[in-house]
Each structure stands twice: as structure tokens, then as C-alpha cells.
């Protein structure tokens, strides 16, 4: 072959890369999502103004509910960990080209299992932290089974996992309803007809220890657990043979099978892991925050976690960023609703707007990077 002179484009590319990695240049990959969120927030504020709520008081309520107090900040971060766990599960399964939309149900069964074990016999009296570790493990197991159920259906009969995980979500949510309605299951003893359909409060020892030990800053050990899991998931996806196998099966199950990578095992593992993380998320909600199991316990966290996973484009950092955003949004939204009388519907609208602009921004970045 004749030797071609060096391509000028190649040199230009190298130069561009140096600038981008120098750290000081503003990278559109970071800037664009920030602009997108800002844009959505502006539209949200305009909508608030249109319905006649005072914009400054709405902003004040939002800030108060997110960063206004140590309590608000800790509660927001605790929420974020739940979204993050579901999101990690989503990207893990998604690496094998599986779409786990069952976070909601996995949270529900995780919550049920955690409650059941926490209230069981003398679990509350166990030493060495087993009092809260056992309920957590039970939740992980329950979530894993819930996810694996969808996987087995897929492997055995080809049921699409989007359908099965979604339907299993409804089953999980109604299972929860049954558990808190039936005195034979988890409903607290009926002393009068006014007894609420909810479980007993779990013993203090089974509640997740607070990092500071101070209820005015209720950040619990769910945060370090989530950080560890974030690292494990990131390493698993990028550095391990297992991660490579997930990717291979996701990209070409037939060729992977020929190369000796079991499709069934990979799919079951991936969905069980996603379910386990969903179950753990349920445990964090129950053992770390709510302490009693109620109907509507999962309240859409599974779906928000799913959106965090979707927006992340498969990256752990992406999940963390989206989860933090959603965690603070939800806290701020609740406060806006309570203090500034912004209707719940509007808060949901603003959240939806953010998702749409972020998704649009993601598309924009992808196109920009391709050029």
C-alpha cells in the first residue's frame, strides 16, 4: 500500500482531546444537562406564576425543603439513595439488554420482607447489628426472587421482561396491600375499627443506625451502603469478566451462547441482581425512614429510579447524578406543596419537564460527540 500523508483531521482531533481532558475547559457533557435542568425550572416557575402562586414563596419553600435545614438535606439524600439503588439495578440488567421496569414491585416485596423479619420473634434483640442486617438481607433476597421470577419466565417461555417485571410490580404492590390489610399477615393488632391498615412500628434496634446519631440530621447507613454498591456495580460492569459476559449476551445472545456463555444464567443473574437492589432500596425506605409498612409504601420510587437509570445512559455516575437531582426535587416538591400550596400535579409536571429536557440534552450530547 502507498503510504498516505498524515491526515490533518487526526491532528485536529488530538488537539481537541487535549483541551477536553485538561479539566479547565467547559465540557458540554456537563454544561448541557445543567442548562436543561435550569430551562425546565424556568418553565416550572412560569407555570407557578400562571396559576397565581407567589413565585418567590414557591422558590423559598423549595430551597427550604432541600437545602434549608440539615434535616431536609439528609432526607433528600436518603431519598436519592433509594433512586440510585433502583437505577444501578436498571443499568446492570440493561447491560444484558434487559429492561427492568419492576423497581416498584421489587421495593414493595423488599419492604414486606424487611418488615416481616424485623417484627419476627427476637430479631430485634440480635447483637452485632444483625437486628437490622437480617431484615436487609431478607429484603435483598425477596427482591432478587422477584427479579429472577421474571428472568425465569423469559428464559423458559420467552416472556418479554418489560411486561413481566411491570406486571410483577402490580402483584408486589397489591401483595403489600394485602399484607397491611390482613391481621393474619402484617397488620397491627386491631384494637378498634379505627386501627389503620399498617404494620406495627419495627423495633428501634432494627432501624438503620443514623450516621450522626442525631434525628435532626437523619442521614443513615444507607448512604455508605449505596456508595459501596455504586463502586461494586461500576467495577463489575467495566472491569470484570462477568460484566463482559453481560455485555456480550446483551449485544448478541446467539454468538455468546456459541462461545459458551449461558444465556439463561446470565439473564437470571442480571434480573436477580436488579431485583436484589430494588429489594434493598425497599429495605432502606422502611428500616431507615418509614419504620411502619403502609399501603402505597413504594409511592413511585421504583419508577423514578427507573427514570434515573434510563437517563444515566448506562453509567454509574449518571445514575448518581440523576438520583441526587430526583431526591432533592422530590423533597423540594413536597415542601412547595405543603408550604407554598403549589398543587402536587404541578410538581409532577415540573419533574416530567426535567426528564424531557434531560433526555433531549442527552440526545444533543450524543450527536455532538459523534461529530
Amino acid at each position, binding site marked *: *500500500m*502507498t503510504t*498516505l500523508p498524515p*491526515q490533518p*483531521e*487526526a491532528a485536529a*482531533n488530538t488537539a481537541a482531546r487535549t483541551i477536553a481532558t485538561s479539566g479547565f475547559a467547559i465540557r458540554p457533557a456537563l454544561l448541557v444537562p445543567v442548562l436543561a435542568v435550569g430551562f425546565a425550572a424556568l418553565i416550572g416557575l412560569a407555570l407557578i406564576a400562571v396559576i397565581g402562586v407567589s413565585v418567590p414563596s414557591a422558590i423559598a419553600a423549595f430551597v427550604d425543603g432541600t437545602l434549608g435545614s440539615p434535616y431536609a438535606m439528609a432526607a433528600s439524600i436518603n431519598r436519592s439513595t433509594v433512586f440510585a439503588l433502583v437505577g444501578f439495578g436498571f443499568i446492570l440488567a440493561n447491560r444484558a439488554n434487559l429492561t427492568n421496569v419492576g423497581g416498584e414491585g421489587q421495593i414493595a416485596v423488599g419492604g414486606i420482607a424487611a418488615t416481616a423479619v424485623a417484627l419476627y420473634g427476637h430479631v430485634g434483640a440480635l447483637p452485632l447489628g444483625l437486628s437490622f442486617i437480617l431484615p436487609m438481607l431478607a429484603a435483598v433476597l425477596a427482591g432478587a426472587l422477584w427479579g429472577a421470577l421474571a428472568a425465569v419466565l423469559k428464559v423458559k417461555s420467552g416472556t418479554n421482561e418489560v411486561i413481566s417485571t411491570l406486571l410483577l410490580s402490580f402483584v408486589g404492590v397489591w401483595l403489600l396491600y394485602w399484607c397491611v390489610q390482613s391481621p393474619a399477615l402484617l397488620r397491627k393488632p386491631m384494637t378498634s375499627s379505627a386501627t389503620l391498615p399498617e404494620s406495627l412500628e419495627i423495633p428501634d434496634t432494627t432501624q438503620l443506625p443514623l450516621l450522626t446519631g442525631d434525628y435532626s440530621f437523619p442521614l443513615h447507613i444507607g448512604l455508605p451502603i449505596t456508595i459501596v454498591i455504586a463502586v461494586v456495580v461500576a467495577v463489575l460492569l467495566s*472491569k*470484570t*469478566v*462477568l*460484566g*463482559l*459476559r453481560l*455485555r*456480550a449476551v446483551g*449485544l*448478541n445472545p*446467539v*454468538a*455468546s*451462547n*456459541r*462461545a*459458551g*456463555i*449461558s444465556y439463561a444464567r446470565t439473564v437470571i443473574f442480571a434480573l436477580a441482581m436488579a431485583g436484589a437492589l430494588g429489594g434493598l432500596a425497599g429495605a432502606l425506605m422502611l428500616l431507615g425512614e418509614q419504620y411502619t409498612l403502609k399501603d402505597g409504601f413504594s409511592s413511585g420510587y421504583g419508577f423514578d429510579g427507573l427514570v434515573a437509570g434510563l437517563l444515566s445512559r448506562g453509567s454509574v455516575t449518571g445514575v448518581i447524578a440523576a438520583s441526587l437531582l430526583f431526591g432533592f426535587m422530590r423533597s423540594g416538591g413536597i415542601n412547595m406543596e405543603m408550604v407554598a400550596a403549589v398543587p402536587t400535579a404541578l410538581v409532577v409536571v415540573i419533574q416530567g419537564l426535567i426528564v424531557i429536557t434531560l433526555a433531549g440534552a442527552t440526545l444533543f450530547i450524543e450527536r455532538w460527540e459523534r461529530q
Partner: protein
Amino acid sequence: MNTASAPAEIVAEPLLSLAAITKRFGSFTALSDVSLDIRPGEIHCILGENGAGKSTLCNLIFGVHRPDAGAMRYRGARFEPSGPADSLAQGIAMVHQHFSLVPDMSVVDNVLLGREKGVLNRKQCARQLEQLAVDYGLPLDPFAKIEDISVGERQRVEIVKCLIRDPSLFVLDEPTAVLLPDEIAALLEVCRRVASSGRAVVLVTHKLAEIKKIADRVTVLRGGRVVATSDRPAAEIDALVRAMIQGSVETLDQSAASILGLEPVRHVGHDSGKQRAPRAKIEALQIDGLTVKDYQGVTRLDNFTLTVDRGEIVGVAGVEGNGQSELTAVLAGMMSPSDGRIHLDNTDLTARSPKEITAAGVGIVPEDRHAVGCVTGMSLAENIYLNRLDEFTRFGFLRRAALESEAATLMQRFDVRARGPGALFSSLSGGNQQKAVLAREITLPNLACLVAAQPTRGLDVGAVAAVYSHIRAACDRGVAVLLVSSELDELLTVADRIVVLYRGRIMGSCMADPDRREAIGAMMAGQPQ
């Protein structure tokens, strides 16, 4: 010579002309300063090795890509197609290298796809198909599902899809790679008929026999540039080949030359140099009464019995769709037989998993490289060691550096050309992808048997020679080779023995003797000899 029907002296106004076309993908220049004319009534062949830019050229004409520089003129006007639909509307039809059919739909529905709005008139379309079948010799069952018909028939559907539009320019991108000798002849006849009605045919190929037979003019591409053109291709074929591969025809591997049709088919075998001395017969692969029924209960492979000895190459000949795919799928562990046994030495491999079959020392080069052979979205190194990832793991972590350095060694040994072991598999040319798959299967530590299905399909001269030199080398080391191919010349050149499959049964078998070509051809058509 073929200038009798289209005298070269009469130069008509070109139907399509390309002037100084350049096309880049990122920093890679696929086409550089390419100019050529397509005249009405001619068959214009584009010759070149894989990666020479042939497909890019077709895609530019068809409007899939837009040129970065240069201009096209079509029917005397500027031609800047906004996309394939635009090109189609202007009378340019293209048969792509890879099928673009919906497997789950019938032939008629595939033909109608994208052509009609509103109510589908299947009956009318079926009538049109029948007419085309008569006109061009392209018989098809209009209501058969694509997934149920053979590869050759699918190719016919692709061609019919174009012809039904009555195109004035008909572009075919390596259409004969999957066809039988008879079918190739029929296709060339179709091209001839299309051209004789004043339309132009652009035929992309690297098969020289086809060019000799049919081309009016030839443009040779190498490295994205036009390196030669000829108005008398049949007479100048050697010069064209030399331009294509930039080397001497004489140094070309004997088997490759034979397969490509440069020379008369000649048996080469694999013990090159040595006479074929009677070897000690050591049976390696034993297939006994293998029967495969598909999910509808149709018998696809019927009581197939065959033994392959160590150091022997047995060719399985036959028209595609006569049980070859099922045979290789069962041997690869991708399908369970309904009856029969497979043994390797004394190990029973019947209905074992692909993993167990690999562990037993059976290498499989699958017929469908993209679907079964590789994961195109992963790197070359990951693909080369996809079945042996466990060897590159420590505490579950992937030792990527070790993986890539081992892969780099194999790349060198098998002449796999890519930017590096980390290159995305889909960025490799077809020939290099095939060499990588072959490298993976042939370097199994305990390789005892190699099953290769259509291993040279779509490969260029250099790659064909490389694939066979590796297969022969493995065979000389005592590996039993089962070679499934629909290219009879290929089998006659390299195999020791040939069995012919017809409708799932062994129609007959004989030594690979070029003199028995006719007899084998008859067996392929279902006539016992």
C-alpha cells in the same frame, strides 16, 4: 470478448456519471477522487478487494451516503439524492450485500413493503412476480415466508424487489456470494436482459469468472481510488487482477486462484508437495444417523452418517438449504438432533452444550458470521477470546492487558488487520472478521476437529488464500476438518472427499476429483449417480 452486443466505439451519453467523488468517514477516506461513467445498456463491473470502497460507492449512488467532495450527474442533471427513497423514485434500484428482508413476512409482503400505500394488492403483486419469474427465470413462491426459504431464494426476492420497480439503473453489491453456479448463471442472464433493454447495470464483485463472462466495462478500485479501467475486460483480466491486488497473479495461492476462477479448477488438497500417501486412518469425528426435524416436524436432515478421519478434509457440497445449516447447527450445539449420535474420538457429543463441545476440542466456524460467530459491538480482542475469557481472569477481574497482548499475537499470526486489538469488531472488513473468527476456533488448545461452514463467503483473494492456508495447516497437524460449502470449485480444490447433501440426505460421495464435477453437480440437483 463480449463487445459484439455493445460496440465500444459508440459512446452514449452516460446515464450516471461521478466526477472526482471523495467520501470520508471520520479520518478514514473510503473513496478518493473517484470518477466514472455508467452508460445506458452496459454492464459495468466494479472490481476490488474488501475495503476497497466498492460498497461505499454503491451507497453513494443509492443515496445512503452523501459525497464530501465531487458531483454526480444522472440522466444529464445534477444528482444529489436525499436518501434511498429519492434514488428509488428516480429509477435507481439496489441489491445490498446483506439481505434487507423481513424474515417473518411473505415474499409478496416483502416486495410490497415501502412501495404501496393504503390497501395492499397482494394478488396483483403475485401476478407481477409470476411474470418476472417467466421473464427473467427467477421462480419464487409469492406466499412463502422469507424465513422458510433458502438463502439463494432470498437473494432472488431481493432482486425481484428491484426489478418490479422497473429501474433504469440496477446496482448489485456482491450479489453472487451466496448463489449456486446455476443461480449465478441465471443472475448474470438477468443482468444481461436488463442491460439489453437500454438500462444500465452496476455489478460489484470480486469474482473474476463473472467479469470475464459478462462485463462490458470494468472499473477497479483499490484503497478508495480508481486504479484501472477497461473497456475489454475479458481480454485484460490479468492486468485487472494485478491492479486489484497490486501483486502478481503468479504468486497467488494456488487454491485461491482456482477458487476465484483465475485458473481451471485443480485439486490442491492439503499435503502440499507430498503425494497423497495412504495415511493411517484414525477416525476422529463420527456422525451416525443424525436426523433433525424442525419445529414444524419437517425433516431437515435425514439419517446423516459420516466419518471424518484425523488429517482429512471432507467437503459437504449441496445447494444451500438442503440441510447444511442444520448439520452445522447440531454439530455446534446450537440445535438438538431428533435422532442420531455424534462422537469425537470416544466422547459422546450428541446434544451437548456449545461450551462442552468447545471443551472437547471442536472448533466451529459458523455459516452466519454476524449472527453466530461474533459480537460486532465488542472489541476484536474480546471476540477472539470470547470462548476462553476464563483464562484472562483473576479474582473475577478481567486481565485486559493480557487479553489484548495475546489477541495482538493472534492478529499477527492470522494477519487480521485492524487498528489494534481494542478496535470495534464491526469496524473490521468482512475478510478480517472471518480471519478473527477462524483464529479463535483454530487456536483452541485441544483442537481435534474443525467444522467450517462457508468459510470464504464474501472474502477477497488474499483472505481466501489465508483462510485455506490455516485450515490446511490445521489439517496437517492431524485435525479432522468438515468443510461445508456451496462453492463446488472450492471443495474440489481443497477437500479430500466430498459428500453431497440433497434435501437433508446424502445423495452420494466421491473423492474430490475435478473430473467428477459434472457428476457432483448432478447429485446436487438430486440425481443419484
